[in-house]
C-alpha cells in the first residue's frame, strides 16, 4: 500500500465525488418529478392509460443501465434529425446524456415504487374520501399521494443508493465522476488497489449518508404511525 499516492490524489477523487453527487441529485430530482405522472398512470384501471407506462417501466427496468446510457450517448447520433436539432449542443455532451439516461432509468424504478404504494393504501381510505364528497383530483392531492409518499420513503432511499452506484457508469462515457477520476489517476500512477479502494471508501461514505438522511426523513414523516406507548 502506497499511502502517499492516496494523499496526493485524494483532492482529485473528491472532485470526482462532487460530479457524482451532482449527477445523482440532478437526475434524482428530475426523475422523481417524472415518476409521479408515470406512477399515477400506471396505477390506473384503464388499459389504454396504463399500457404505455407499463411498457416504459418494463423497458427501463428490464435492460442494463449501461445499454441505456450508450443508447442516449452513441445511439441518438445515428439520426441526422437529432444532429440538426437545436438540442444537439446538449445531446452531444456526455454530462447531459448521462443525466438523461439516469432520469429515464430512475423515473421508471420510482414510478414502480409509487405504484406499489398507491396499491397498498387501504381501500377504506379511498372510500372515506369519496364519502366526504372529494373529487378524484382532490382525493389524490390531499389523501392518496401524501399517504403514498410516506410509504415509499424506505424504498426510495434504496433507489437513491442504487442510483448512486449506477452513476459509476457515467465513467464509461468519459465523464470524470468518482470512478472516472479514479481510472484517470490510475492510468497515470499504476496504483489500482490504492486508488480504487479509496474511491470505494468515498462511495461507502456517501451511501451511509443517504441511509442516514432517509432514516431521519422516515422518522419525521411517519411519526404519526408510531405506537403511542413507545
Amino acid at each position, binding site marked *: 500500500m502506497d499511502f502517499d499516492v492516496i494523499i496526493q490524489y485524494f483532492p482529485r477523487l473528491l472532485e470526482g465525488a462532487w460530479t457524482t453527487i451532482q449527477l445523482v441529485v440532478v437526475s434524482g430530482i428530475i426523475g422523481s418529478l417524472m415518476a409521479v405522472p408515470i406512477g399515477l398512470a400506471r396505477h390506473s384501471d384503464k388499459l389504454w392509460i396504463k399500457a404505455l407506462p407499463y411498457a416504459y417501466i418494463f423497458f427501463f427496468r*428490464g*435492460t442494463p443501465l449501461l445499454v441505456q446510457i450508450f443508447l442516449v450517448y452513441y445511439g441518438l447520433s445515428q439520426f441526422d434529425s437529432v444532429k440538426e436539432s437545436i438540442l444537439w449542443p446538449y445531446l452531444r455532451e456526455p454530462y447531459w446524456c448521462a443525466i438523461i439516461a439516469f432520469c429515464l432509468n430512475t423515473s421508471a424504478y420510482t414510478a414502480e415504487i409509487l405504484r406499489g404504494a398507491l396499491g397498498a393504501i387501504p381501500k377504506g381510505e379511498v372510500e372515506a374520501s369519496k364519502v366526504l364528497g372529494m373529487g378524484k383530483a382532490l382525493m389524490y392531492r390531499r389523501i392518496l399521494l401524501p399517504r403514498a409518499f410516506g410509504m415509499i420513503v424506505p424504498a426510495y432511499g434504496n433507489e437513491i443508493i442504487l442510483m448512486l452506484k*449506477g452513476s459509476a457508469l457515467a465513467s464509461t462515457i468519459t465523464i470524470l465522476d468518482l*470512478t472516472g477520476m479514479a481510472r484517470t489517476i490510475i492510468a497515470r500512477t499504476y496504483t*489500482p488497489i490504492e486508488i480504487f479502494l479509496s474511491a470505494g471508501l468515498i462511495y461507502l461514505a456517501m451511501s451511509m449518508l443517504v441511509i442516514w438522511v432517509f432514516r431521519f426523513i422516515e422518522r419525521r414523516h411517519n411519526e404519526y404511525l408510531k405506537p403511542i406507548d413507545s
Partner: protein
Amino acid sequence: MIDLRGFGPQLWEGTLMTLELAMVSLLVGLVFGLLGASAKLSGSQLARLIANTYTTVLRGIPELLTVLIIYFGATTVLMSTASLFGYEEYIEISPFIAGVIALSLAFGAYATEVFRGAIIAIPKGQSEAGMVLGMGRFRVFFRLILPQVWRLALPGLGNLFLVLLKDTALVSVVGLEDIMRKSTVAVGFTKEPFLFYMTAAFIYLTLTIISMVGIHYLEKRANRGLVRS
C-alpha cells in the same frame, strides 16, 4: 435468424457468453450468500463482524468499481505475490474470471440478507424438534432448514438474479465478449449505434422475460406442498 448487417451470429455468441457468466456467477454467489447468512447467524462474534463488513462494503460500492478492483487489482496482487516466489512474468486474470468473482461477491452480499431472512422465518420449534430427535446441528441444517429456505428465499433470489443478469453488462467494460461488447464492435464497423444498442436492449429484455417465466415456474414448484389460503 435476423442478419443484422452480418453481425447476428456475433451477437448470438455474445448472448451465450452473457448467459454463461450469469449462471456461473449465480452458482458461486449462492455459495457466498449461504456462507454469509450462516456467518451472520452464528454465535461467533468474529464471523458476524466479517459477514457484516462484507455485506456493507459490497452493497455500498458500485458493481462497476467491484469489477474494476477485481480485474486490475487481482493482477497487481497476483504479480506481487508471484514475484515473492521469483516469478517475474506478466500475469493477468481473464475478464470472465474477474467478472465471476466480482458479480458473485456482489450477488452474495445481497443473497446473504435474503437467506438470513428466510432462515429466521422458519419457526424455532422445528430445529428444536430436530435436536430432540437426536439430529446434530449440521443434519438439522441440511435436512430441515435448507429445504425450506429454498422456498422462502426464492422470490428474493429471483429478483437478485434479474439484477445480476443486467450487471453482467458491466464486465464488457474490462473486455469480456458479451452482448454489449459485441454490439460495440458491430457499431464500430457499421456506424449504426442505435440499431445495435437497441438490439442489445431487446436481447436483455428477452433474457429477463425468460428468467421471469423460469422463476415463476420454480416458485410454483417450490410451493406445491402448500395449500393457498
